[in-house]
């Protein structure tokens, strides 16, 4: 699975989920309409999105997605066409939500963030777990060996559903 796209150069650290999608937009029972409010809680967020209308890969600093557990953050990214987030670290719950929504969470060294933020195009090879900015060298990144399966098309709920009998047997013997 190869993804190629333009970056949305947020660059900053601690992009919390209130910045990604403010709570006032969490009033639905589906995922409709979330995309139009993406980054509306971030100072300058709307302007950054307008400057990079074709962007599909977020580039940010440390601790991306900290704060609330709202999966709406992942849904809003997906709704706007984002397929990956490159950051120097992720908050746990967002990281889990990214995998279940097939958003590729790419961790690179802080020093590399600017390279990706300035790139015209970023290419990701999910299967090989490598990424590069423009024609630069391929950089390896880590993915969770199990959750990678969710990015490549296996669903989270079907996987858990396949475990129900195992869980029941475990509980019976508990």
């Amino acid at each position: 699975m190869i993804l190629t796209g333009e970056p949305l150069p947020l660059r900053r650290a601690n992009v919390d989920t209130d910045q990604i999608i403010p709570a006032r937009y969490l009033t639905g029972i589906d995922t409709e309409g979330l995309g139009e409010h993406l980054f509306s809680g971030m100072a300058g967020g709307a302007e950054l999105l307008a400057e990079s209308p074709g962007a599909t890969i977020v580039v940010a600093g440390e601790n991306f997605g900290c704060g609330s557990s709202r999966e709406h953050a992942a849904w809003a990214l997906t709704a706007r066409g984002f397929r990956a987030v490159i950051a120097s670290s992720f908050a746990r719950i967002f990281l889990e939500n990214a995998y279940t929504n097939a958003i590729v969470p790419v961790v690179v060294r802080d020093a590399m963030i600017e390279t990706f933020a300035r790139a015209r195009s970023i290419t990701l090879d999910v299967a090989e777990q490598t990424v590069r900015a423009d024609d630069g060298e391929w950089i390896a990144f880590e993915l969770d060996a199990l959750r990678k399966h969710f990015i490549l098309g296996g669903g989270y709920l079907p996987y858990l559903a396949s475990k129900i009998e195992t869980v029941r047997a475990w509980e019976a013997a508990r």
Partner: protein
Amino acid sequence: MRSLFDKIWDAHVVEELPGGNALVFMDRIVAHEITTPQGAIAIEREYGDRLYDRDRIVAVNDHVAPAKDTATAIQAQVLRTWAKRQGIRLYDLGDGGICHVIVPERGYVRPGSTVCCGDSHTCTLGAFGAFALGIGTTAQAGAMLAGCLILQRPKVMHVEITGRLHPSASAKDLALAVISAVGFRGGTGYVLEYTGSAIEALDMEQRMTLCNMAIEAGATTGIIAADATTAAYLAQTQEAPTGWPMLRADDDAVYAARITLDGDTIRPLVTWGTNPGENMPIDGRIPVGAAQASLDYMDVHVGAEMRGIALDQAFIGSCTNSRIGDLREAAHILAGRRVTIPTIITPGSQAVKRAAEREGLHDIFQDAGALWTHSSCGPCLGMSMGVLAPGMRCISSSNRNFQGRMGDGGRVHLASPAIVAASAILGRIASPADIATARDSRMEARV
């Protein structure tokens, strides 16, 4: 050799999975109206009526309760009709409150158990010696369908608080101090396991306040070993769980990291910036090296005092500080005085509200000119009542001072209920000591 967390984890691993993951059994799943509908609908669409065990699920309408508009009315109604259809216990208007308040208040948490909810502040329940964590909607749906979460095993950080909490400080100040010590993202990948004499001396409400903010250091959760204080609290709850193990860490437990704070050195704190780690002593100055973006958003500068900054609103409530002890702390300051800025006081549950009213706290609050509301998540997340206008500055007993958290362009300073109450009276960031001083100086002026 094992920490308290290790013991709970080991007892709940159903299966080790690839990539360092495990299938971890969830004893309790809490479901609220904002993050549950999409998952509940997905399960019913794909799997029909299949739930792993409906008796393990507790549903709560809490975030926008009562509903504020058609969209939130639909959310609440979806949760209601789903709970009824599936035979799930629902806490709704009149009998409800914030899920992290009513779940422990009714005794739905057992020491040594696991709890998850599509809400990051589920870590609150770690106060009961449970492994309690926030998760996304899909993970919550998976737990309802298959009884389990897929989790990477977190590391454990030993957070020891020695001595006793200083009399001028509250559990909120301790929580903020821990976030500063661990770092706003320093807890990522860890469970914070709290021990020490200062922790043992905390009551259950104080322990909940402390554990509630573990997520604000990025931690998976916080946890405190159950003891006689825990047992006494749970014994008087509706569900009154019994037969749970009094687990604690082995004396030779191995931790991946360790920090120690002296409880006697904790003093009242207030945040100056846009994350809870950006805090300082109430009588301090904003430190050199403060993040410029945070300073700009909050319209403050390095070297500035927080004390004395003019405020537009005050809020006491949220899953951090809305229990009876928090309300007593505020009432103690507000008794016989008047607030000078709009002040909203929101109890964490209807049971807390009724308990407060039996003690006459509602009269103290209303005599002081504060707005005493029904229970709800309220102004904390800018989703229903008490939203800030751009530029408004609010002092709040809640847990997040993120940009726009309480309203687009609004500014939030986090502090304890006592600091919020004192600040509401003076209309500027203040400590209870400042009120005594203000009164004394007025008396002197009269003389």
